[in-house]
């Protein structure tokens, strides 16, 4: 856009230098800012990957010491890691399945139908998202402990699954 067109559009004339600064700022400032923001977003992940090649002297992995590949040679050899990864995957799969099914049904009802308890339902969906995770987990724990019997206590795979599904339903409803 030429300076003349700009001044026509804004309906007032102004010194060309200001216009130039403004055009430059308009074109690049936001882009530069966005670039910085993206770097900020990606930095921790990059650092994490970088430090997986670190060769720490002691146990803590906080200061760069030297390059090594040794932690990548046997990634599954850490004690208990394969089981933990497996459990995480199963848990994620099952809770996604259940939460998506339950959440989609609710979303369908909310979108397709008018009914009396609609706004109450809306609030109930929003509440778990509005409750801090620590409070959600703690209140479930209190309940499981006070029931004090199987299948809720002692805590096991099933209780984690219950918590995950409860926590995720709202997010499914909101997104679907």
């Amino acid at each position, binding site marked *: 856009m030429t300076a003349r067109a700009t001044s026509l*559009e804004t*309906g007032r004339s102004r010194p060309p230098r200001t216009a130039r600064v403004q055009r430059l700022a*308009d074109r690049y400032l*936001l882009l530069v800012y966005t670039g910085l923001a993206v770097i900020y977003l990606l930095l921790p992940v990059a650092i*994490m990957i970088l430090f997986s090649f670190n060769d720490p002297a002691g146990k803590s992995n906080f200061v760069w010491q030297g390059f090594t590949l040794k932690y990548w040679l046997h990634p599954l050899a850490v004690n208990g890691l394969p089981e933990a990864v497996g459990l995480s995957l199963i848990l994620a799969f099952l809770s996604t399945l259940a939460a998506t099914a339950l959440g989609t049904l609710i979303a369908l009802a909310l979108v397709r139908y008018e009914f009396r308890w609609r706004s109450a339902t809306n*609030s109930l969906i929003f509440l778990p998202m509005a409750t801090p995770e620590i409070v959600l987990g703690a209140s479930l724990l209190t309940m499981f402990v006070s029931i004090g019997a199987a299948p809720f206590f002692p805590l096991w795979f099933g209780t984690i699954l*219950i918590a995950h*599904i*409860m926590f995720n339903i709202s997010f499914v409803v909101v*997104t679907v």
Partner: protein
Amino acid sequence: MGTLLKRHRWIAPLALLAPGILWLLVFYVWPAFQMFIASFWSGSLETGFTFSLSNYTNYTEAIDQFSEQYLRSIVYAGTATVLTFLIAYPLAYTIAFKGGRYKNLLLFLVVAPFFTSFLLRTISWKIILGDGGPFLGLFKDLGVLPEDSRLLATPIAVISGITYNFLPFMTLPVYVALEKVDIRLVEAARDLYAGPWRPGGAIVGALLGGVLAGVLGVVFAWSWPLMAAAGALAGGLIGWLLVSESFVRVTFPLSLPGVFAGSLLTFIPAIGDYVNAEFLGNPETRMIGNVIQNKFLTQNDYPTASALSFTLMAGILVVVAIYARILGTEELSTGGRV
């Protein structure tokens, strides 16, 4: 079946709702109620708990003892919400209006880091902000910062961690709201002489920037007059150069639902967060989430922990209720994302 459904129109939504709502009632509402009961317990895990209404002292004692942590949580979460807004709004604006063919790539870059675990990201910040870490190391080598300056275990580290971890919760709703803004409205506004907003933008920008940076200075225990001056300068420049009247009168008001939803989605989890304060903070920066977690899992002091949780939840619900008054429940559960 068809006639049955027609006669009882309420059956269909009920059948759709029942499983999910039941799950929430059993595993959300009931435990919350249980926790409310537990907050009136006395005793310990070994001796057993007894319920009595006279144990409302759990609340007064808990609030009395941990008011500092409550206040700190509010300040940290509030500061982090403002910071996420300052970072997310220009980001979302650029993606929505200037993204062009890179729009999807940029969105992906914004979301991608959050496919990795919350814990890992926070630990990664611990490396970055550490005393021998790349960030401090650079500035110390340049001689800008004294040798003994620290970032880790300060409020700055905790607030930066929270800001980082909840950034997408602000960026995405704001982006969706901006994306929906009809560009023709903006063009119409420009045609009607809503061009650059020079003096107004500079004055408003300087005021806002000054106040914001001053408050940040107070929170971070930096020299606030200096911060306020710097903020006023930056805000004034931005307002003078970038803010147009069409933005102030059309784009920004239309994006407000996204800003509201984003603030809520950031503030609520941030106020109960304990991971950032745990990894990036010190005992002086403990937030209420840390206290609750410690009471529940380490000390097994269920009554106090329940009272603390319930106070926190009640506080958040009040905030949400005020929001719901302004926005309506529909807007809440859709998070401004429709």
